[in-house]
């Protein structure tokens, strides 16, 4: 069942309308507030939105800035001063952010208006948008299907025209996979490109903020304002920030693009195989050179990823103890230990508990070397595969985003392991820290994205190939 959606309008075209005075920033916020009001009851893409606050920001909008007057929704795990940051968890239901994430202050400095807190899988753990204390989000293309996750609300809201663009976070595919399932563009930049300060930590060596937009131009526009070194994040990169839009429409003539033979799997749904085939044909027609490559450790990625992600999560989420912030169990506790345990037990949802337990196990005495240390070594092998391919002259890698289009909502016959295995094509970019993007392919049914990956800090090249595909498919 298709939801009546609003026309998706790009940041780039809205910016022109604002500059031409066809619409004011205030009117723009009012228009999107109206759309949220109308569509959110059906989609549950936003947990909350503060129209008053957005209108106040709109009244001072400086249209000379690159994102002047443009409303952008923020995933519920990224802090905006004075607004809730719940991570879609009961644990943080009353948390109000005491500062802006650097990504958000960068957006503000570029003139944007943060507007709307998007729904997500609790603490970014999930890939269907179902693990939310605020209820599941629906896929706007078909309400009976999941939007993907964990940036479920960001992808659904952009796809439904409820907001022109949104921030998400991507630890193992959480920007790219929902983008693929909802038919929007999802960019995960290089690890360290965008500061993680103010992003609620899930797995710190894998987490990266990304964007969900209606087109590749908007991804470039947003990235330009988001990245740069930040003293508040010791892992934030000092790499120079190029002009991501300068060569965006220069095409892919002569670019060598590798197609991993491990990714052209019989395990992929026919729609996914077709999407890959279409992308290959289009890129070839545009003058790119497509070559078969091999990533010998591709099959090891999911196992390595889940050990590392859960280990880091169990450590990061140890901070939720009901003392300094977050949920505190109401029943009187006799000792601090009781207080911690009761607060965590009542505050966390099921998948979060499952991953904390797995993470605690692999870090516990006697198992650390067998699981955690080994997973980190295999991670190095996965990363070496990519380094080798790029060293051999391949400039980009093409692959699927997910093995199948969006599953039905509440498909309860899947075990956690089966759900984790569907992340096979997205987790390698996080393990290796590479930039990657999901671009929608032409489809008549459920959306299917294809993925491009680039060497570290080569987002400009990545975006250029993505823009070429998008342009060819218009």
């Amino acid at each position, binding site marked *: 069942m298709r939801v009546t959606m609003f026309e998706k309008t790009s940041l780039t075209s809205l910016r022109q309308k604002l500059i031409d005075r066809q619409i004011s920033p205030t009117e723009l916020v009012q228009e999107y507030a109206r759309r949220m009001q109308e569509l959110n009851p059906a989609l549950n893409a936003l947990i909350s939105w503060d129209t008053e606050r957005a209108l106040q920001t709109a009244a001072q909008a400086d249209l000379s800035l690159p994102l002047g007057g443009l409303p952008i929704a923020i995933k519920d795990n990224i802090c905006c001063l004075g607004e809730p940051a719940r991570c879609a968890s009961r644990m943080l239901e009353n*948390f109000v952010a*005491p500062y802006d994430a650097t990504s958000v202050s960068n957006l503000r400095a570029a003139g944007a208006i943060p507007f709307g807190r998007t729904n997500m899988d609790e603490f970014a753990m999930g890939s269907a948008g179902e693990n939310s204390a605020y209820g599941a989000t629906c896929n706007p293309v078909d309400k009976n299907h999941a939007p993907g996750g964990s940036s479920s609300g960001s992808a659904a809201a952009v796809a439904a025209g409820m907001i022109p663009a949104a921030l998400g976070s991507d630890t193992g595919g959480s920007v790219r996979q929902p983008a693929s399932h909802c038919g929007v563009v999802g960019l995960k930049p290089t*690890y*360290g490109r965008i500061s993680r300060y103010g992003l609620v930590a899930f797995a710190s060596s894998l987490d990266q903020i990304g964007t969900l937009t209606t087109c590749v131009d908007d991804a470039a526009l947003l990235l330009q304002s988001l990245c740069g070194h930040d003293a508040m994040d010791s892992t934030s990169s000092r790499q120079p920030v190029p002009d991501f839009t300068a060569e965006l429409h220069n095409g892919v003539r002569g670019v060598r693009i590798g197609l991993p033979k491990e990714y052209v799997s019989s395990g992929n749904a026919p729609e996914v195989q077709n999407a890959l085939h279409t992308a290959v044909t289009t890129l070839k027609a545009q003058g790119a050179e497509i070559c078969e490559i091999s990533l010998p450790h591709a099959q090891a990625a999911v196992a390595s990823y889940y050990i590392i992600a859960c280990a880091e999560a169990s450590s990061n989420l140890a901070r939720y103890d009901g003392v300094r912030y977050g949920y505190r169990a109401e029943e009187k506790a006799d000792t601090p230990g009781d*207080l911690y*345990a009761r607060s965590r037990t009542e505050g966390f949802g099921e998948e979060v508990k499952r991953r904390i337990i797995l993470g*605690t*196990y692999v870090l516990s005495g006697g198992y650390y070397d067998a699981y955690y240390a080994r*997973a980190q070594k295999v991670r190095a092998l996965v990363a070496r595969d990519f380094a080798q391919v790029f060293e051999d002259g391949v400039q980009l890698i093409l692959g699927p985003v997910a093995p199948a289009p969006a599953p039905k909502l509440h498909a309860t016959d899947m075990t956690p392991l089966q759900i*984790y295995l569907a992340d096979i094509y997205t987790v390698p970019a996080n393990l290796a820290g590479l930039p990657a993007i999901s671009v929608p392919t032409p489809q008549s049914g459920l959306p299917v994205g294809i993925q491009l990956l680039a060497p570290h800090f080569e987002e400009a090249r990545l975006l250029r190939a993505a823009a070429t595909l998008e342009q060819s498919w218009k």
Partner: protein
Amino acid sequence: MEPPRIDVAYIAELAKLELSDEERSRFTRDLEQVLAYVAQLEQWDTHDVPPMYHPLEVYDALRADTPGVSLSNEAALANAPQQTDGQFRVPKVVESAH
């Protein structure tokens, strides 16, 4: 291969989580399945491979040791479930003297 055993009750205690009997048996089943799957990591030769703790090498990440602006005491306590006299309030930690 012997299916890996995981003592979920003990691990939950370490993680400060209280599980119902139903949760404990479900998590045991789920996690044993995951652990059986990740056992495949043994098949890769990692003999001379250093563990990769971080996706990119970052050097000299420390900033100059000069005081900056921090959250005010009030802002830091604003999300506290309970507070007293400008401090976080917790249950009594030490035993009473008898």
